[in-house]
């Protein structure tokens, strides 16, 4: 049943999120073109070429402003993606759609899992799309002399040929990469489950302004999570640095970082489990659909 739930959640989310990703790529392309144009125009004016400076200035201003705005919009799309995912959650769990959701012969766990996995999938897709849009911008939109910006490509190559090998002297790159991916994923899971939890609790405490209640709850929970994380991590940091590392070599510092990172993973898994279990308990024991 989880597969079927995910299929329908995916269908519901794709309806808005797929066009959004296309929009990001399109916007990225437009920003790249505008930026490339304006750079060339400004170069031309430096060279003192003929033509109206006012017109050039105008074109320049418009192009730069649009490019900057589109850039901001692309960065904001992560937020929009999150909002759309949460809105979908809100509608299926607290809205009229809840009459459909909660009369399905499926377990509460599967309902939550489906929302979590499809939400995470779209956040990841969005991240990849934003990276691609930024890369396109960096490569094609930041240079005057040639079509592509060689510097960006060289910086990328340098990262793989020099920086990574240098880093690998102190830490294991595959381990680090795996750690980044795993901790990133559980961190994302914890974040989404925290929002879902806030929406569920918001629906429990408020009858009317449920969205506001959910936002308030989120901020409140966030404070709690901040405090718990700070306490947890300071114990971990203290424990690790006192017991194992003298931190007197770069290699040890690297290992230390990796260990701390691992503990963050543990923290996120713990938070995820907590949010998941409490959400499920509320939905099972105290569902009161209006």
């Amino acid at each position, binding site marked *: 049943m989880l597969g079927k739930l995910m299929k329908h959640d995916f269908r519901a989310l794709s309806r808005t999120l797929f066009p959004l990703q296309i929009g990001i790529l399109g916007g990225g392309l437009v920003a790249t073109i505008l930026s490339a144009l304006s750079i060339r125009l400004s170069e031309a004016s430096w060279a003192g070429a003929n033509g109206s400076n006012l017109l050039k200035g105008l074109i320049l201003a418009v192009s730069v402003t649009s490019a900057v705005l589109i850039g901001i919009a692309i960065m904001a799309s992560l937020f929009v993606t999150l909002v759309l995912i949460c809105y979908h959650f809100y509608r299926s769990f607290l809205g009229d759609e809840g009459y*459909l959701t909660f009369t399905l012969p499926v*377990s509460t766990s599967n309902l939550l899992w489906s929302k979590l996995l499809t939400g995470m999938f779209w956040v990841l897709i969005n991240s990849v799309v934003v990276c691609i849009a930024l890369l396109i911008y960096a490569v094609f939109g930041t240079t005057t002399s040639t079509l592509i910006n060689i510097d960006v490509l060289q910086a990328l190559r340098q990262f793989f040929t020099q920086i990574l090998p240098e880093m690998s002297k102190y830490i294991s790159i595959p381990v680090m990469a795996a750690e980044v991916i795993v901790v990133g994923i559980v961190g994302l899971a914890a974040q989404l489950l925290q929002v879902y939890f806030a929406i569920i609790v918001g629906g429990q405490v408020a009858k009317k302004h449920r969205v506001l209640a959910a936002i308030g709850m989120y901020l409140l929970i966030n404070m709690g999570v901040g405090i718990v994380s700070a306490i947890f991590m300071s114990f971990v940091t203290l424990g690790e640095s006192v017991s194992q590392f003298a931190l007197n070599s770069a290699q040890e510092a690297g290992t230390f970082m990796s260990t701390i990172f691992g503990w963050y993973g543990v923290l996120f898994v713990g938070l995820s489990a907590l949010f998941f279990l409490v959400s499920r308990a509320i939905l099972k024991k105290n569902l009161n659909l209006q």
Partner: protein
Amino acid sequence: MQSNNTQAILEVRALTKRYGPTLALSNVDLTLPKGKIIGLLGPNGSGKTTLLKIVAGLLTSTSGFVLVDGQPIGEGTKSLISYLPERTYLPDWMTVEDCLDYFVDFYADFDLQRAREMLSRLNVPANKRMKQLSKGTREKMQLVLVMSRRAKLYLLDEPIGGVDPATRDYILDTIIGNYDNEATILISTHLIADVEKVLDEFLFLKEGVITMHDTTDNVRETQGKSLDELFREVFRC
């Protein structure tokens, strides 16, 4: 999805539901047999919707318990129950085809063929989105989905409330035409005259309390009056 051989499809014991200080259901005891069409009758605000929502699993009770085919409310009972709420609950963006797909995926007892036949009789095109349908058509569409399941217990909340006489006839025809005599249908309504001919039994619900549970024919035979007349007497303001 094991079947239970007891004769009761629904057993409710000492069920109470409070909304803050308001008592919506008070110590309700109820046993409904299999294979009957039963009216849950009472004026607005008497607790009909609350009772149906608890059985459907959308509300948790304050105290007491409910068994559907011998099982407590949960995943298992939800596969046996086909529930029609008062409101339109299908997402706006879904097409008719999406809705059919949804029901096919989640309900093993959904009869797609039957649903398609009924929809074509209603002239609802498969590619229409819910938001493009009129409220009335949307309600009929929901009824078609709910009645196309071969469920053991149907819970229909005010299916004929606020519809014109032609639609009311369509709805009652759909209910009768899809009824299979193994199943029990619980219909809540305050429009007694319209449904009384299709009811085997009825329950009177007054301010959260079941005040009467009898067969429709028995009322006519022993009291010489229709259910509608009896209702008007019992619930006189």
